């Protein structure tokens, strides 16, 4: 248990001219959720595929529990499990058939495989759908069977590649709950996501990745501190009051205020405060100032910085493809 779950140094993977992974150094400790945060095409999936022994790196080193992903691929495979971005079970087969198939491949006997499949389907709330083809499952159910298939032999390291992309909020919450239980039982999880919010809720540490490079790394708190704490969104009752509101907010928050195309909306960074409380305080003072001035507010919210804002802050540019 001494080697880290994942350790890479100078890892490179190129596709022709495209350096999808471009010199990544990463250390993922045991027993935590580690978030890989980045937009589409940042290289997250490629990195995961290299670590899961699906792709050979073109340079650098990657070790999983101290084992080299190229030279000792088989040893790595016996300890990891991958839930890909797209269905990683056979859609033509039923839920039971998929799990029995994988259990058999993992060495369980016929009887043990059936028992294990039934137990997993029960735990993932899929007993009623056990005999149905996976292609007839809803998005949330499909994700659950994917994860169930990944923990057939409880892996020591689980790769979850964008596990909640495309899910409705309820299904997303279910996936989050499942991930928390999985980690609580000692499995290390490498989670890729496009949502800062998701990484923030689940991950102990986050690496922000863009153009194949890690551009920031740390705990969610330290990352947020480094990029500012939040954004205030205001919607006014009366568009005519906007210039006055804009002037007030600029004074109270001490930052520039953006007036968008919506005639009643205003957006501003809530200071460059280095803690959540600082931002909230700024925001409440701003709200009080608006009320005192007799400006009618329909909607007022303090949001976390979006992924756009994270990238703006970290790279001083607009990411091309943030979904």
């Amino acid at each position, binding site marked *: 248990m001494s080697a880290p779950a994942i350790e890479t140094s100078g890892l490179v993977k190129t*596709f022709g001219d495209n350096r999808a992974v471009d010199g990544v150094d990463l250390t993922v400790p045991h027993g935590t959720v580690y978030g890989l945060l980045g937009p589409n095409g940042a290289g997250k999936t490629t990195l995961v*595929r290299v670590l*899961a*022994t*699906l*792709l*050979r790196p073109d340079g650098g080193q990657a070790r999983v529990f101290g084992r080299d992903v190229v030279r000792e691929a*088989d040893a790595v*495979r*016996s300890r*990891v499990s*991958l839930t*890909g971005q*797209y*269905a*990683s*079970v*056979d*859609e*033509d*087969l039923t839920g039971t*058939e998929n799990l029995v*198939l*994988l259990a*058999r*491949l*993992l*060495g*369980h006997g016929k009887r043990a495989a059936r028992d294990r499949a039934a*137990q*997993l389907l029960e*735990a*993932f*709330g899929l007993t*009623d*759908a056990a005999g149905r*083809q996976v292609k*007839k499952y*809803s*998005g*949330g159910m499909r994700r*659950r069977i994917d994860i169930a*298939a990944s*923990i057939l*032999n*409880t892996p020591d390291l689980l790769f979850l590649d964008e596990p909640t992309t*495309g*899910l*409705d*909020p309820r*299904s*997303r919450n*279910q996936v989050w*709950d*499942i991930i928390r*239980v*999985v980690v*609580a*039982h*000692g499995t290390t999880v490498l989670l890729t996501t496009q949502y800062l919010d998701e990484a923030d809720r689940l991950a102990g540490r986050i690496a922000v990745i863009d153009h194949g490079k890690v551009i920031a790394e740390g705990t969610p708190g330290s990352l947020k501190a480094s990029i500012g704490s939040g954004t205030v969104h205001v919607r006014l009752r009366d568009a005519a009051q906007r210039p006055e509101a804009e002037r007030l907010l600029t004074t109270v928050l001490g930052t520039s205020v953006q007036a968008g195309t919506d005639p009643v909306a205003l957006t501003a960074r809530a200071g460059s405060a280095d803690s959540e409380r600082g931002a909230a305080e700024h925001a409440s003072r701003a709200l009080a100032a608006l009320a005192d001035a007799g400006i009618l507010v329909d909607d007022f919210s303090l949001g976390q910085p979006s992924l756009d804002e994270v990238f703006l802050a970290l790279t001083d540019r607009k990411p091309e493809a943030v979904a």
Partner: protein
Amino acid sequence: MSTTTTNEPATVYTPSADALGAVLAREARPPRAGAWSASLTFGWRAILKIKHVPEQLFDVTAFPIIMTLMFTYLFGGALAGSTREYLQFLLPGIMVTSVVMITMYTGVGLNTDIEKGVFDRFRTLPVWRPAALVGMIFGDVLRYVLAATTIMVVGLVLGFRPGGGVIGVLAGIGLLVVFSFAFSWIWTMFGLFLRSEKSVMGVSMLVLFPLTFLSNVFVDPGTMPGWLQGFVEVNPITHVVAAVRALMAGDWDTGETMWVLAASAVLLLVFGPLTMRLYNRKGAR
């Protein structure tokens, strides 16, 4: 966040820490599945797929029946004086043609299958690597047997009377299936190598049409011009047909049979490793 269409049961699933915890308990892992057992399990997957999508059996039943009827009645009168007599000559050949044609679906099937995420999972399992492909071809062997049986039944109904009896027929089908199993590996290679299902189809047709028609399947090569006889001589299909024909007729031809078995071994030894090389590198695009 898009809302997906749900047909979830009325009771909403709430993950239970206890139930999940129970399945996550680290019990002693079973020993690794052996190569043979893993291949059979993948073969079971192929059979399950046939069970869920039975339409895919169309090409191993309807196609061979059409081939047999078409060639018997189209050429029989002209080539052998009567359809019944021609059938004695044609049936083993048309069986070889149909089954060898069907082998191309192995490549097409692999090409569509591998584009889906499930192969990523298979490739991260700690099992004997070729098992997924071997198992897939096991499933296809079942289809070959089915096609051969269909043709034999149609042939018997139309008046085919094999001199080799039941043993001869079974031996003929057995030899054909062995050859087809080995031959399939060419298509698994193309299935991994080519980009789309359509191009796999195209290449297969390009190879299979000359191979099956420029042979001794339909007519005696003695009637062909010399240069064409040269090709027919070296065409592996000619040898398979000669061996199967002899087995079914009851006059066992050791030379041709050995030739077919040797060719099968060569195909497997050449295209098996080539396929595995591509399979291991798949995803490098």
